[in-house]
């Protein structure tokens, strides 16, 4: 149970911080490089590594895995995505993060 609470909190914190960083692109209050730096500070790799078995074998962690994977792939590809698809493409990621965050918070 305690593990669940800390994983919930960690996933929600990642989603919250990632959303705040990405919003800077939408509102033009941060450069792509600054936003990427903020995303890189989110320790999603360790969270994924430490909870990998739980996240991948139990459907109740679907939204946790989704948040962590969303941010990890953004860390790798944000600049390419912005270059190829523009800032608007970030809106789908923000919606996705909000949706998963809501699902975890309401459980």
């Amino acid at each position, binding site marked *: 149970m305690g593990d669940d609470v800390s994983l919930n909190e960690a996933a929600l914190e990642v989603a919250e911080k990632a959303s705040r960083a990405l919003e800077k692109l939408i509102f033009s209050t941060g450069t792509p490089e600054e936003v990427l730096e903020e995303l890189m500070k989110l320790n999603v790799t360790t969270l994924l590594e430490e909870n990998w*078995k739980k*996240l*991948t074998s139990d459907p109740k962690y679907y939204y946790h895995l989704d948040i962590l994977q969303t941010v990890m792939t953004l860390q790798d590809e944000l600049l390419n995505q912005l270059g190829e698809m523009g800032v608007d493409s970030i809106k789908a990621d923000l919606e*996705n993060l909000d949706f998963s965050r809501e699902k975890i918070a309401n459980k």
Partner: protein
Amino acid sequence: MSSEKKVKEKKAEEVIQKILDLRDKGETREELKYVSKLRSPIVSRFEKIKHKIAVMSGKGGVGKSTVATNLVAAFKAEGYNCGILDADVHGPNVPKMMGLHEKYPDFKGRTFYPLETEEGIKVWSVALYWPSDSTPVMWRGPYKTRVIKQFLAAVDWGELDYLIIDLPPGTGDEPQTIIEKIPELDGVVIVATPQEVALLDVRKSGEMVKEMSVPVLGVIENMSAHAICPNCGEILKCANCGNQVEFFGEGGAELASEELEVPFLGSIPVDPRIRTSGDEGTPFVLKYPDSEAAKNFREIVRKIEKELEKHKPSSEGE
């Protein structure tokens, strides 16, 4: 680092420098795309894989994953070291067809480690780590593309002779991204059923692949011609008139391959055991090696090998 690798890296750096010089004089998008491909982590991931072959279909439901899993098994049966990447994120069936149900891959240091089947075939698929078979993958546009790129960049295949890539159906963003990103992709095999409507899709797929300057290694006609009795392995005939039972006809994919001016690799008859062995998690060619379909798969593999020889860059082996 091997001397061969050093030479390759030196050549790549020279090409990059030339392109950057060109860019300074008046850059173009195409050149920058090429540089980003050369410098991508995907390139180093694929360095130890000798041959990369993508399997595609113009639409779903033609048995693309069945063909892909049996092709990789047929290559394995020839003694090659093989892997299969299930890139169909919305319909990831490869692990189940390869007998990898409820087994979990490792993830360490941002690297994914593929699982290995009993026969020693390496497998990677979103289905290996997405919790439960019934949880839908609801990724959209950019996210989906990023995950696919991550599969290409972060799955550690080790050394392989052949990697078969089971592409998502159609000619949209995802198959295009994969075909574009895989370094030195040897070519694409197109799977089709014999009906007229399916053939329109073959033509579209073939034209798309050609447009991307990737060789089409050939076309395979699945569910072709006669059907096979699952009990005795003989050709099914009508009990009343004695004629052979043909569900979808025959020969259309061969016609399409002629139109596209690409090789026709062969046809796979309707054999219900292909479905049952897939459901049971053993590729058909390994479970029924003496069947007509298994023999055809092995013949197709030999034809693909010949095609690869034809498309081999002239500098290779020098």
